[in-house]
Each structure stands twice: as C-alpha cells, then as structure tokens.
C-alpha cells in the first residue's frame, strides 16, 4: 500500500487541507501542536473503518466543536496494484465514493455502502492488520517494541528469505500440546493439577493402607496371643489343681507335729531358767577369783616397783659423776687448743722475717741497676747537645743542594759553549770572566798544542793569539740572570752548611744519624729508670727493711720457749669418756719439743702449715669434747627424772594393794570361798538335767519332721499363691486380648484393610495412567518445543540480521539482538554487555523500536503486503548524536518504502537525508 494524498475537511481543527505524500522516500510532515498532524492518521483509519452513517462516538469526536458541519476525508492510495480515490463524509450530506483504476487502466466506481464494503474488502485483502498496526506508530506509542510474529507479509518474507517454512497450520497443535502439557506440569516442570493431586492422593492412600494393614497385623498378633494365652491358661489351671492337693497333704502333717513342738517349747523354757541361775553363780565365783588375783598381782607389783626405784636412784647418781668427768676433759682440751694457737703465731712471724730478707736483697740489686741507667742518660744527653743538625735543617740543606744543581744546569743550557783548540805553534791565550767550566775542564790560561778547551760562557771570554788575533765571546742578558740564580743557590747552601756546622750535606747526614742513635739510647735509659722507680725509690724501701730486719734472733727463741711452757700441764684422761679420751692420749703422747726454726723461707712456711694442721686437730677434739659433755648432762637429767617416776609408781601400787585386800575381806564376810564354788556346781547339774530332757523331745520332733512341716506348708501356700497369680494374670491378659479382638471385629478391621488396599490400588492405577499421560505430554511438549526452537532460530534470522545491520549503523559493530518467539526483540548486546530490553534506557528502547519497524518495513517492501511506516512524533528521548544516526537511518529507509513522520519538532529530523518536508500551517 502506498498513500498518495489525504484531504481533510471539517475534521477536528482542520477546515480544509490536502497533504500530498511521495510514493517512495521519507516525508516529514511538520506542524505545530493542534494543527492536525495526528488527524491525518486518524482520518485514514476512520475512512476504512466506519461507514458514513456510523453513529460511533468517534465520528462525533472529529466534528469541529460548535460547528454543524460534516467531517469529510478523501484518500488517494495504491492498494493491491490499483489506484483508489476514496471519499467519505459523515453526519450530514453523507457521501461514500470509491473510484478504482486497475493496472490495465480500467476504471470502476462505487458509491454508498457498496463503496464502503468494496473499500473495506480491498483493504483487508491487501493490508495485513498486524503489519499495519505494527508499522503505524501513534503519538505516545513510540516506545512500544513491535511483536510482529503474526504479520503474514513478514512471515512470508522471512520464510522466503530463510528458506524455512513457518508452519502456521501447526499452531493449533502447538497450542494443544502446550495446553496438554500444562494440564500436568508447570512451565518450570513441576507436577500440577490433577497429576499433582494424584501424587498426593497416592501418598495419602499409602499411608491409610499402611495404617489399616498395621491395625490388621495387630489383630492377627492378638489372635496368636489369645491362642497362646488359652493354652497357657489351661496348663496353669491343671498345675494349680495338682498343687492344691499337695498343700492339703502338707497341712495335715503339720497338725500332727504341732503337739511335740508345744512340749519342746515347755522344756526349752525350763532350760533357759536353769541356765540363768548357773550364769549368776558362775559370775559370783569369777568375781571372787578376780579379787584373789588382784591382791596377788598388786603385791607383786609393789615389790617390783620398790626395787626399780632403788636402781633408778643409783643410776642417777652415776650419771651425775659422769657429767663432772666430761666437763673436766673439756677444760683440758681448751687449754691444749690455746697452746697450738701460739705455735701457729710463732711460725707466721718467722715466715714474715724471711720474706723481708729476700725483698731487701732484690731492692739492693735494683738500686745498682738504677745508678747505671742514670749514667747512660747523662752521656746521651751530652751527645745530643753537640749536634746542630736536625731533620728540618737537613731537609733545607738537601733542598739548597738541589737548587744549586738545578741553577747550574739551567745556566749550562742557556749560555754559549765555546770550543777552542790550538792547531799551530802559536800560543793561544784564554781570559775572561763569567766563563763556566764544563764538567770536564777549567779554563786554562793557555792552550797547549792540539789541546782543546770546551767552555760555557756566561760573561765574557777572550781568546787571543798574541799578536795575531783576539776573539771576545760575550754571553747575552739571560745568561747573566742564570748566573745570578746559580750564585744565589750556592750562597744559600753555604749559609745552611755553616748553620749546621758541617762541610757538606754528607757530613750533615752523618751528624743526623748520630743524633738519632743518641736520642734512642736516651729514651731507652729513661724507660728503664722509670721502670725501676715505679714502685718508689728502692733506697727508701731498703731503709725500711733494713730497720725491720735489725731485730735479733734471741727474741724468737724466747717466744718459742714460752710456747713450750704453755703446752705442758695437759690434764689426765677421764674414765667415762674413753671414746673421747683415747685420741687425746695419743695427742699428748706424740707431743715433742719444737725443733729450732729453719733459716730458709720454704722450711719456715712448711713449719707454719704443720702448726696450723695441729691447731685444726685440737679444734676438732674440742668440738667432740663439748658434744660429749652435753650428752652426759642430758643423760643425767633423764636418769634423775626416771628415778622420780619410779618413786611415784611405787607409792600408787601400794595404795592399790591395800584397796584390793579390803575388797576381798568384805566379800568373804558375805560368803566364803568354798560356798561360792559349791553353789555353782549345783546350778550346773540342774542345767545338764534339763538339757537332757530337751534333747529327748527334739529327737521326737526331728523324727516327725515337725520343724519342716511349717516351712513346707508355707512354701506350698506361696507356690499356690504364685500360681494363682499367674493364672489370674493369664486370664486378665486373655480377657484383654479377647476384648480387643471383639472390638476389632466390631470395627471391621479386615474390611477396612481391604478397602484401603483397594483404594490404594485404584489410586495407584489412576496415578500410573496419569503419569503415563503426563510423561507423554512432556515428551511431546519437549520434542515439539525443541524442533520449534530450532526452526524459530532459523526463520527469525532474516529479521534479526536486518535489525542488526541497521542497528550497527547507529551503535557500532558490537551491536547484537536476540528475538523471542513473537519475533520481538528480547535482548540487546552492546560492547559485550547483554541486557534484556526492559533494562535499557528509554531512549535506547525507542531507538530499538524504530529500528525494528524499519527492518520489518525493509523486509516486506518487496512484497505485495507492504504498508507505509508512520511515526507520529518520535525520537523524543534521543540526544544530538543519536538523532544524527537515527536521521540517517530514516532517510535510508525511504529508499525501500514509504516513510511518513509527523512532528512538531522538525529539529529532530534535520539529519534525515533526502527527506521531503511538508509544513502544515495553523
């Protein structure tokens, strides 16, 4: 379909306007708001939809407000290859006129309802309503993405392009399969509907059947239990009857033996009385014997204690003597110790004397060495005083020598060298001043024959052959300067040699060597002197020691003598301390008078060590003597205490003995000893007589089994009671079980179980049938879905490719889209980011909606079903850059079909190339 022109008269705000549209290309219809742009679209729809006599409110709505005029629309268009001119006027003077020119030029015209019907038929035959609605974007609808799957021209186009037939005829089957699938499954694959209910019903029925089965099994168990209980009850009844017979027999036997037992009890009572009397007499006799024993025992104890008291007194006295002896021994050892200490002190003094003597000898030697050293110091100092050359002066001399050599060398280089040789017989005379001799020669006054003189001339040289020739050689100005430097250097050297008191540098070097030797000698001697006097002046110490050693040897002898006297007078040994006294004796036995003191230090030191060892031995003896004395004192104290206790015990024993004698006397006053013995013997005889009688009765009871009879009866009765209890328990259990069975019979448990199992089987069967159908539905759904998806992917490719091609001109090469089953764009990927359409910005969504429509238009443009693409106010959300790209796209779209854009914002479309702009005035 192509729209060529639209004429509106009395249509909303438009009084009379005709808009002509190019059949191909993009047309932008520009007009302000309310000028009637949207009315063009609306008018085109109404002319085909509503007959001229329509009472629709849509007609009333288009009549200009307040004007009794008839809205009228005329459209010129190409439809199905025919040219149509179609006019319709509503409300007043209604008119419908249709004129058609066929491709072959044949013209046909209709009016009235026929015209309407023919126009409507032609429209419906040639315009796919879905495609028409898809490509005509009303105001405010530009964001809606098209879903063109049902647009036949598009399907035809993609089918033709993809080569994949889209089986429209299968769609009812697809719906039916999906419907069947959804009867059993949710889209997520979970059981639903009757199938899900069936699963639950199976579970419930299984539970119910299991419960019923369990209840019936309990009934069966009860039956078995009741059978068993019946048998057990019969058995226990039988055994109980037998046992009760036994009980009666035991009871009769017991009655027969009860008389014997009564008699035995009487005799037993008599025996107990006699035994009590015997006990009393026996107790009296034992008391008498105890009194007699007590008197005897205390008498013996009293005697023993008296003897022990005497012994204790003796021991105490001996102990006191022992203490005295120990203390005497202790005193002796103390004195011995004092003597030994004196010996040690003497030995120490001798050692000290010998040490002083040795020190004095060493100091004398040291003083001699000191005198020698001091003489060397004086000698060295005198040498040093004589020598004037030191290191500084010697260095200056060497420098001065070098300066002379250096100046002379410069002079030799800077002045002329004259070589004179006598060749003939005539004398050659040489004279002049400032003539420097070379190393080889002095200036001779006259040269001999064939003699040669080589001379450096720094001043003036006259060479003459008397009478014949005289040659004067004069040096230049520089030679004079060099000459003066040499002179200065020589003068400086002489001054320094004079100062050093030597004739040349070699003599100065010798002087310097001698000075170094003397200086080293001086330093070494001074170090020795310092060392020898480091501990003070040896002379002072020699004086001290000489004074100290001036003591005579007689004094030492006197001291030794006094020591010896002090050692004498050691006390003798003590009898009670043999252990202690024995080593003491040895000590005194070995004691000898001291030998003369040794003269050497080693001997004196050894004597000192010996004396100290002896002192230590005596000190150990003293410790032992002190311990022995303490022990003796302690033992004496204990013996004294023991003697006191023995005295006290002896007194107590005497008191007890007296008391025992008094008690025995009192008892005998009541009954003498013989009477006590006789009474006990009499009681004993009585007891023996009664026991003999008791034994006879007991033998009778034993023979009759009297004692066992009571026990047997008790045991038998207990067994009977237990068996009766067992029987009662069984009977109760049987009654309880039978009661349960009676109840289960009333409840019809078996029927319940059968019903439950039948219901379960029926529900399972039904469920299995449902499951098979559900699985079949799923199998079909999935299989068909898989094949559809594959086909969908293939046949949607042309549209997808077209959209992506257009989109890449706007978004760049990374632009991709995915279509859903309705061929609507579902997702977009840009720069690797894939998003659902809903997640895109408003502008992007609108751009994608426009691109999709242009792609659809492009696809269908070659077919008969193509329709114009109409945008009523779009691109309201795009920025400048996007407007440029989208404008280019809209312009290119016009190459393939009719694109009509209605807008009040022409700026948005200024980038549409080759567009026809139509301005609508108000």
């Amino acid at each position, binding site marked *: 379909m192509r729209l060529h022109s639209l004429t509106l008269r009395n249509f909303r705000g438009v009084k009379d306007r005709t808009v002509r549209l190019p059949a191909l290309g993009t047309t932008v219809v520009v007009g302000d708001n309310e000028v009637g742009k949207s009315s063009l679209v609306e008018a085109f729809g109404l002319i085909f939809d509503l007959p001229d006599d329509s009472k629709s409110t849509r007609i009333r709505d288009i009549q200009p407000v307040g004007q009794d005029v008839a809205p009228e629309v005329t459209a010129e268009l190409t439809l199905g290859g025919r040219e149509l001119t179609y006019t319709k006027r509503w409300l007043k003077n209604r008119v419908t006129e249709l004129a058609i020119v066929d491709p072959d030029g044949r013209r046909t015209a209709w009016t009235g309802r026929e015209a309407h019907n023919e126009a409507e038929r032609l429209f419906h035959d040639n315009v796919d309503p879905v495609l028409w609605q898809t490509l005509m974007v009303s105001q405010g609808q530009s964001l809606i993405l098209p879903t063109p799957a049902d647009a036949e021209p598009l399907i035809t186009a993609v089918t033709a392009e993809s080569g994949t037939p889209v089986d429209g005829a*299968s769609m009812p089957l697809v719906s039916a399969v999906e419907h069947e699938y959804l009867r059993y499954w949710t889209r997520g694959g979970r059981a639903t509907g009757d199938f899900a209910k069936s699963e639950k019903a199976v579970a419930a029925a299984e539970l119910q059947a299991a419960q019923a089965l369990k209840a019936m099994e309990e009934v069966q168990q009860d039956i078995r239990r009741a059978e068993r209980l019946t048998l057990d009850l019969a058995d226990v009844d039988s055994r109980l009857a037998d046992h009760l017979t036994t009980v009666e027999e035991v009871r009769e036997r017991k009655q027969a033996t009860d008389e014997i037992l009564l008699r035995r009890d009487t005799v037993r009572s008599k025996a107990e009385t006699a035994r009590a009397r015997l006990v009393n007499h026996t107790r009296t006799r034992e008391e008498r014997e105890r009194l007699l024993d007590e008197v005897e025992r205390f008498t013996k104890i009293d005697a023993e204690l008296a003897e022990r008291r005497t012994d204790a007194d003796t021991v105490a006295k001996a102990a006191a003597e022992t203490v005295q002896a120990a203390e005497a021994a202790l005193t002796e050892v103390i004195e011995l110790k004092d003597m030994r200490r004196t010996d040690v002190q003497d030995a120490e003094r001798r050692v000290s004397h010998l040490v002083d003597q040795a020190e004095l000898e060493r100091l004398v030697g040291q003083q001699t060495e000191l005198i020698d050293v001091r003489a060397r110091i004086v000698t060295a100092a005198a040498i040093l005083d004589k020598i004037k050359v030191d290191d500084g002066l010697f260095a200056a001399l060497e420098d001065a020598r070098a300066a002379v050599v250096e100046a002379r060398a410069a002079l030799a280089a800077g002045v002329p060298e004259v070589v004179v040789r006598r060749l003939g017989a005539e004398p050659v005379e040489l004279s002049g001043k400032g003539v420097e001799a070379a190393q080889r020669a002095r200036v001779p006054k006259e040269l001999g024959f064939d003699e040669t003189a080589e001379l450096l001339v720094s001043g003036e040289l006259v060479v003459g052959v008397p009478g014949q020739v005289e040659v004067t050689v004069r040096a230049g100005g520089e030679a004079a300067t060099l000459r003066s430097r040499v002179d200065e250097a020589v003068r400086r050297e002489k001054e320094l040699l004079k100062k050093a008191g030597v004739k040349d540098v070699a003599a100065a070097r010798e002087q310097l060597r001698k000075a170094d030797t003397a200086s080293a000698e001086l330093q070494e001697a001074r170090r020795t002197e310092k060392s020898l006097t480091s501990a003070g002046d040896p002379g002072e110490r020699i004086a001290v020691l000489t004074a100290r050693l001036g003591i005579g040897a007689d004094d030492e002898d006197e001291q030794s003598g006094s020591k010896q006297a002090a050692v004498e007078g050691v006390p003798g040994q003590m009898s009670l301390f043999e252990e202690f006294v024995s080593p003491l004796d040895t000590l005194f036995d070995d004691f000898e008078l001291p030998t003369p003191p040794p003269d050497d230090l080693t001997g004196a030191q050894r004597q000192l060590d010996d004396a100290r060892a002896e002192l230590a031995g005596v000190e150990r003896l003293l410790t032992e003597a002190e311990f022995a004395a303490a022990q003796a004192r302690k033992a004496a104290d204990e013996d004294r205490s023991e003697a006191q206790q023995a005295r006290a015990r002896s007194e107590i024993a005497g008191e007890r003995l007296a008391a025992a004698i008094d008690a025995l006397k009192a008892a005998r006053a009541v009954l003498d000893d013989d009477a006590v013995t006789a009474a006990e013997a009499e009681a004993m005889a009585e007891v023996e007589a009664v026991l003999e009688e008791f034994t006879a009765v007991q033998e009778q009871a034993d023979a009759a089994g009297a004692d066992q009879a009571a026990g047997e009866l008790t045991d038998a009765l207990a067994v009977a009671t237990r068996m009766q209890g067992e029987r009662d328990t069984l009977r109760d259990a049987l009654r309880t079980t039978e009661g349960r069975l009676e109840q289960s019979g009333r409840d019809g448990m078996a029927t319940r179980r*059968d019903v439950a199992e039948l219901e379960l089987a029926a529900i399972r069967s039904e469920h299995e049938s449902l499951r098979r159908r559900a699985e079949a539905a799923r199998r079909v759904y999935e299989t*068909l879905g898989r094949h559809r998806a594959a086909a969908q992917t293939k046949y949607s490719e042309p549209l997808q490719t077209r959209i992506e091609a257009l989109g890449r001109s706007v978004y760049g090469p990374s632009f991709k889209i995915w279509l859903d089953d309705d061929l609507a764009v579902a997702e977009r990927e840009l720069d690797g980011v894939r998003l659902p359409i809903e997640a895109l910005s408003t502008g992007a969504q609108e751009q994608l909606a426009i691109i999709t429509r242009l792609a659809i238009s492009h696809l269908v443009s070659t077919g008969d079903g193509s329709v114009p693409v109409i945008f009523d106010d779009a691109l309201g959300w795009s920025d400048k850059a996007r407007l440029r790209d989208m404008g280019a796209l809209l312009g290119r779209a016009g190459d393939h079909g009719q694109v009509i854009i209605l807008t009040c914002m022409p700026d948005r479309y200024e980038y549409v190339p080759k567009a026809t702009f139509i301005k609508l005035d108000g």
Partner: protein
Amino acid sequence: MDDSITFLHSSDWQLGMLRRFLGPDGQARWGQGRLDAVARIGEVAERTGAAFVVVTGDVFEHNQVERQTILRACEALKRIPVPVVLLPGNHDALEPGSLWTSSQWQAHAPEHVIVLTDTTPIEIVPGVEVVGAPWRSRRPTSDPAAAAYTNLEPAPAGTTRVLLVHGQLLSLSGGMSEVPPIDQAALEAAVAAKKVQYVGLGDRHSTTKVTDRIWFSGTQEVTTPEETDPGNVLKVTVSQSSIEVEPIRVGAWHMVDHHVELFDEESLTALEDWFAELPDKERTYVRLAGDGSLSLPLLSRLDTMIDVQGEAFASVEKWAKFWTVRPAPDAADLDALQLSGPARAAMEELRQALAGGDEGAGVALSLMHRLARDAG
C-alpha cells in the same frame, strides 16, 4: 419306604469380599450380588423342598468384616426358610476373636441358623445328623477334616449323616495349598463304612464332583475369571442307598478372560462385535489379553472403545501381563495429519524412537497424534 432327604449344599460365600478391578459402584453391586445369590438359595430351598441348607466354610471373607456385612448376611439368611448349618472355614475360623463368638453375630443371627463349633453330630431334622470339622485356626497343622470322622461311629440305623468339611484335596490342589490337605481316601473310607452318607466340601470355588457322595459345591457367585463353574448351589438328595446331586445356578455375575489379536480395522471391529454380544454387561468383568500392533488412528480407536465398554460393563481391563498391542505408526498416518515444519519433524522423531523400541515414545506419539487430529 423312601428314606431319602433333600438338602442344599453351598460354600465360600465370602461375604465382605472386595475386588480390585471393580470401581466403587461395581464393588457395591457385586457385594449385593453375592447376598442376592444367598437369597436365591432360599428360593431354591423353597422350590425344591429342601429340608435344610449346609454351608461348608468361608461364609465370611474375614473374622473382622464390618458390622454392615454381618447384618446384611443375617438378613439374607432369614430369607432361607429352612434350617441352615454354617461351618467355620479358614477365612472365618473359630479362633480367638472369631466372628462366630462375637456379640454382633450372636445378637443378630437368625434362630434357624446353627454354627458348628465342635465335632458333635447334630440332628438337624429327624433322621438326619450333620457333623462337621470347624476350623479353629487359619493355619491348622494337620488334616482339618480328620477330627470330624476319625472317631465317628457308623450312623444309627435309619439316620442319614452328612459330613461337612472345609479344605483342599491333594488331587485337586496340586499340592499348592499352604495347609495340610484333607485325606480323600479317609473320606471315601468313611463313606464306605456308612459313617456318613454325604460329604460336603468347601474351599474350592468351582462346583466339583469328587465322588458320587463327595462334592465341592463351589461359591454361590463367581469371584475370579479362573473359576470354571462357579455360581451354583447343590441340591442333594441322599439316602443310605442312593445319592443324587444337582447343581442349580444361583449366581448372576460373569468374569471373562478374552484374548484378541489386533492388527487392522477388521480385528477391531470383531472385538467391538464380541463386546456387543456379551449379555449382562453391568454384571460382567472382562479381562482382555491382546497381541498385535495398530496404526495410531486404530490404537486411538481401541483406547476409546475400551473406555466406552468400561462404562457399560462392570469393568473392562487390559490384562497387563498379557497385553502386547503396540502402536505402529507409518508415514501415511503422519501425512494424513497434514503437518509440516517442526510439528512434522517432532512426530517423525518420536516415530523413529518408537521403532527403536522406545515404549515411551509410542505413548507420546499416540498423544501427539490425537492432539493433532483434534486440533486439525
């Protein structure tokens, strides 16, 4: 002088029995049918002048049947105008909790009904003694009939004695019974020794003659298709010297096994005709065994047929163990649907899967075929 006596022999009423293959409605009708058959025994007794009726075991399905079953049984028994002797069998043994000792039974049992609780002979009518061996446990450890005849003296002169026992004979059970069988030779010996003149047996559901004087009456109403001659009551006319036994039908239900081979439209039509000719459809259970293969339209038609017949009959079932009818779709089936594109490809995939032995694919293919046909 004719000393013969006529009585009726029945057994295995198994009142309270349920059948898996019947729906709730069929179940109720079948249960009532078994009671109706009991009532018809009463009519036969009246018609034949029978002096009494004996039922040789398994009167009830369980000892724990529901109260309604007991009460309805009592009502059915009241419709028998002569004395009725009931023998406890393995299903309703005289065990603890037995139905026979329950207050429900004792309160409602008609007075003319006697339950044998021991082996003491009872003179049921003058000149006729009935003696039986009631089961005391469901699992006896020895011949369940022996107690009744072992110590039995020959019948007094002029007395006809009827022995009632319940259990299987080794010759008929093939040794498949879980409990000890009845000693057939001993029974025949008792008959030969004139201790009894007739032995009424129960437990076998088909009417079966063992000897002239030893019979299984069979159940009054069929219970499974395997039973060969159920639904009878035996009219027994017996004397010391003669015996006459006549099965009289009292059952109204049928249980039928039917095998078909299905491979084309004619075979399906033949099956339809077979269904059409069966009488008493509402009281008939059909168990179908089938072999063969059918195209998808025919398979769909078969399923529809079975569904429809299942409504008309008490029940129509495919006998799963013997049902091997398979779909056999061919390209013509698919072409007939005029499908193309993905739908055609999907069906083709399922068809090939079926050809490869995928049973699930066959069911799916049938469904898809039906959906396509209905949608088309």
